């Protein structure tokens, strides 16, 4: 553990549960603090995804054109990209809309289930892709950390391995759905 690991986390189409599982490191988070620098993420105030990030954990599926742009940018700026949780790895629950047409999904939300101004949001909001898809269908991914959410222990293992300069092998350490 010679150098400080520059870590970013982000989420696309997810529920933040994976991030919560990360926070479930509890006090171990404080122990880890001297060895890591959180350069970007929902818990810190950086507005720009920095260049040269050592490790980025991505939660959530790619569901919109903005997600797509973002994940490509993140891939370019990250040395190791971790698909963090089932939504990123398999599209999971966000992918459940894939059996329906985007149009019908939007219609239910904004036309059928509203009593005032039924219209489809269109200003300043991203464009939904036909299907919510796993991250690795868009960019190459180095580490897959499945789970809904991934168990805290698996997260700890992943980060410890990365701190030790190894690419973690999660085979058998995490499973879909749990």
């Amino acid at each position, binding site marked *: 553990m010679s150098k400080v690991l520059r870590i970013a986390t982000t989420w696309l189409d997810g529920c933040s549960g994976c991030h919560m599982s990360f926070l479930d490191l509890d006090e171990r988070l404080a122990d880890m603090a001297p060895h890591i620098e959180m350069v970007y993420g929902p818990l810190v105030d950086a507005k720009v995804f920095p260049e040269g990030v050592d490790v980025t954990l991505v939660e959530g599926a790619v569901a919109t054109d903005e997600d797509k742009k973002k994940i490509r940018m993140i891939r370019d700026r990250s040395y190791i990209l971790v698909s963090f949780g089932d939504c990123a790895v398999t599209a999971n629950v966000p992918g459940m809309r894939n059996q329906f047409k985007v149009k019908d999904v939007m219609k239910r939300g904004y036309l059928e289930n509203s009593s005032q101004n039924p219209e489809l949001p269109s200003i300043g909001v991203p464009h939904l*892709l*036909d299907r919510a*898809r796993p991250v690795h*269908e*868009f960019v190459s991914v180095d580490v897959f950390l499945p789970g809904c959410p991934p168990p805290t222990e698996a997260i700890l293992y992943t980060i410890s391995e990365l701190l030790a300069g190894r690419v973690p092998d999660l085979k058998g350490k995490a499973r879909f759905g749990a």
Partner: protein
Amino acid sequence: MTLTIEDLQNIAKIERDRQEGTTYQINVCVAAGCLSCQSGLVKEAFDTEISRRGLENWCLVKGVGCLGLCAAGPLIQVQPQGTYYQGVTVNDVSEILDSLGGSPVARLECSQHQAFFQCQQKIVLENCGKIDPERIEDYIAEDGYLGLFTALRQMTPGEVIEQVTKSGLRGRGGAGFPTGLKWTAVSKAVNNTKFIVCNADEGDPGAFMDRSVLESDPHRVIEGMAIAGYAVGASHGFIYVRAEYPLAVKRVHTAIAQAERLGVLGNNIFNTRFEFNIEVRLGAGAFVCGEETALIASIEGRHGRPRPRPPFPAEFGLWGFPTLINNVETFANIAPIIRRGGEWFAGIGTEKSKGTKVFALAGRVNNTGLIEVPMGTRLRDIVFEIGGGIPGDKRFKAVQTGGPSGGCIPEEHLDMPVDYESLAAVGSIMGSGGMIIMDETSCMVDVAQFFMEFCMSESCGKCVPCRVGTTQIYHLLHKISGGQGKPSDIETLGELCDLLKNTSLCGLGQTAPNPVISTLKYFKDEYKAHIRDKNCPAGACRMQAPEEAL
């Protein structure tokens, strides 16, 4: 009633006399290809015109099986000169009759005549275009059922198998398994009940050899099956034929009825204790039923889903009984082998591939149709001599053999001999004999996609690699041909193909990737052009808008 050799010879003599009694004979092709070009009407017109002119004793009109050159239908052949006329219509009838005895009608004469008809050597198709498929007498006149007689009366079952083994004949259905070995296995199986199955479920898109044989010379297949029945100890046979071939089905039914009437099927055939019956079973549109175990399931009235082998049908086949399954063309070779001896047959072809092979020539070639050449004929000769080359000044690109299980062979291999081993060496297979010629306007990615779509929808769905793998490969090809592919897709394609080949349950899945593997091998640049440049070099694929490169 039992038939004797004298009866047989008598029938043959009467028939030969009938045919030789007339000065001229006009053979009109009434196989499916020409029939769809109204050859039936042409034959009627000849009949009408001849009876109007009262020439019945001078000129005989005969509906015959396939003359081979389907592209030029309706075809007729005038004997004894052997003149071929192409594209004959009802209006040409009088003119042709007028020309008899004089010089041929030049404008109708087959221009492809020379090479197409003369470069071939016919065993399986020897009677095609010669005999009336709906008359057993015609067949007998051409030494029909002589093979069966020889086998039953002059040979032991073991000797029959020995001849077949000696001939070096290999299964014509695709894989090329030595026929003699298969027969031996079934004959050795200990069981009082055994079955013979003729696989006429010709499912390869682009192949119509079996259909032509059944339409043009059905008795040859029946005879082959009966000989096989004698050799292995089976008394019941099934012909499993595609329902999509109604004419073939009809002619097979007719032939079976005639054979039964004459006593070459039934009990005590040729005064022996051998009995043999044949039933026709209709396929219902499932390519996978070409696979032996699936075919068996289908005859048993179930889904045509293959089961793991071993046990092989030779030990555990139809209803659990030892079963011999051969392809139409394989059975069609049997009678000549028995009549003329295995050594004669072994003298034709190459060291490991004996005899001849029938091919259905189609695609971008001038002479599409049915041909039969000795094993080992150069591919280039087939395409450019017999096939007459590529129409319209286009450049040859590839030839696809073996249907959906086969591969695409590029120009660099055109000089190879056509036999089982050589084809396998370049990544294709002999298959049942479909041969599709492609020119520069054919896109190889598109062709691979076409075959994969076929395999995907023909997959029975039993094993995972085939069911899902073909679908995934198809989706990848679809993406690539639509300009939506990514560079890593080529690698993924290769991996999936390898997976299917090595882990699928049956031959369909194991060979389904062949068109992709061979096009990837020889035409990788075309794939790359689709992916990198979003461009189809052959101009065949429609590129989608480049918005969503998923």
